[in-house]
């Protein structure tokens, strides 16, 4: 009985404590830089799309919310379309982990409510941002051995020119 009264009193004192609630729309919560929110597609420092349509994000996605189609243009791979269904996305970040070119990244933004479900399907133009996201200097084609117009084999960063296997000279 006494302990019950004690409990009552201590519970009552909570009336004068600070509220833990963050009154959301007026008061924004702190979101860590690595918070996993809305997914974006980034560009490399030259302003080209980073995505090379390797499908790894689509494979890694546990809820199959990413769909894309590869297309090729002047030796570079691009997604013809890149579609994320955010009504399915669980923001697990596996796509970001799977991405070999830092193209797909999660941002600390979650305010993407819609009144109609189809509006949650984001196309490539909705996903692409103009910047480089979390990895400012990185450009896949600059470090990859793949030959593209303007950069032949062996011209990438930290890459030796290819060895001519049929040549006799050392």
């Amino acid at each position, binding site marked *: 009985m006494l302990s*019950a009264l004690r*409990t*009552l009193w*201590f*519970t*009552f004192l*909570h*009336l004068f*404590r*600070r*509220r*833990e*609630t963050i*009154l959301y729309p007026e008061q924004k919560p702190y979101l860590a830089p690595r918070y996993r929110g809305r997914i974006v597609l980034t560009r490399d420092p030259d302003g080209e799309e980073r995505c090379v349509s390797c499908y790894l994000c689509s494979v890694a996605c546990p809820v199959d919310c990413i769909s894309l189609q590869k297309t090729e243009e002047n030796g570079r791979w691009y997604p013809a379309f890149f579609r994320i269904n955010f009504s399915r996305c669980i923001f697990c970040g596996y796509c970001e982990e799977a991405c070999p070119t830092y193209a797909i990244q999660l941002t600390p933004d979650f305010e993407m409510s819609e009144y109609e479900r189809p509006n949650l399907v984001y196309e490539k133009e909705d996903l692409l941002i103009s910047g480089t996201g979390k990895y400012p200097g990185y450009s896949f084609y600059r470090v990859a051995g793949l030959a593209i117009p303007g950069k032949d084999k062996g011209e990438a960063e930290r890459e030796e020119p290819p060895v001519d296997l049929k040549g006799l000279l050392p």
Partner: protein
Amino acid sequence: MSPLAAGLANVFGILVALLLLAAELTWVERRLLGFWQDRYGPNRAGPFGMLQIVADMIKILFKQDWVPPFSDRSAFVIAPMIVMVTLFLAFAVVPIAPAIGVASHLDVGLLFFLAMSALAVYSVVLAGWASNSKYSLLGGMRAAAQMLSYEVFMGLALMGVVVLAGTFDLAAIVRAQRGLWFIGPQFVGFVIFVVAGIAETHRLPFDLPEGENELGAGFHTEYSSMKFGMFFVGEYAGIVLVSALIATLYLGGWQGPLLPPILWFLIKTFFFVGFFILLRAALPRPRYDQLMAYGWKVMLPLALINLAVTGAVVVARAAH
């Protein structure tokens, strides 16, 4: 105003006020619980969230009103009505202020309240039985056992007040407390009545009839839409009723200095409404056997001793 018009104004005024109050209490409770849990509670709809109940009402009225095909239809439909009707009827005998109250001068007022609260048990039992599902039945059975056993010493605790005031008339009981509130001489009775009142309205910590973690929702598991809403309004009307009776019987009802009588009545009533909500915020639910043992082994003997001592003192005083 003619007596008839005054009477009608009294009846409908109290009825509407009680209904609104019981509904608004859902908001009050959520708000207070929030405060005691370091949250805000519903604070969006209207000033301080007071219009939350309007939103809730719209929602609950538009929900599907489903009567399970396996239920006993007529009893199922009647059960939630009984709780509302009996609790509102019981409110008729509560004297709110000298001139406000439907039948506050009824000479069996207190007995009428006990009879009505006993009838309210039917609603819970019928609801549990007519639902024809195991959780509902268990909830209904628990409710029947709990409310009947707590009713016994609730009545006995009240007899102490009756002995002191010499009447069952609630308005006369209030007048009898002009010098000294009965909470002084009847403190044990007061405590017993508060405990019994909590059990009678099956509020936490005595809400075993609806113990969520064991019984789904207990006796109203199968209820939906406004039928469920009626149980809910009934529960809150019960809280108001028991609080009002505590104020009337032990705290001098409308009496108090400076402020108008009705305000004093409301202050005292709401103090206990707040206390009921605090109980819910603070205390865990006892086991069922603990609840019954507590009722029969502690509260009943205490109530009997209280009644005997009160009676002895009154008789001894009268002999002088």
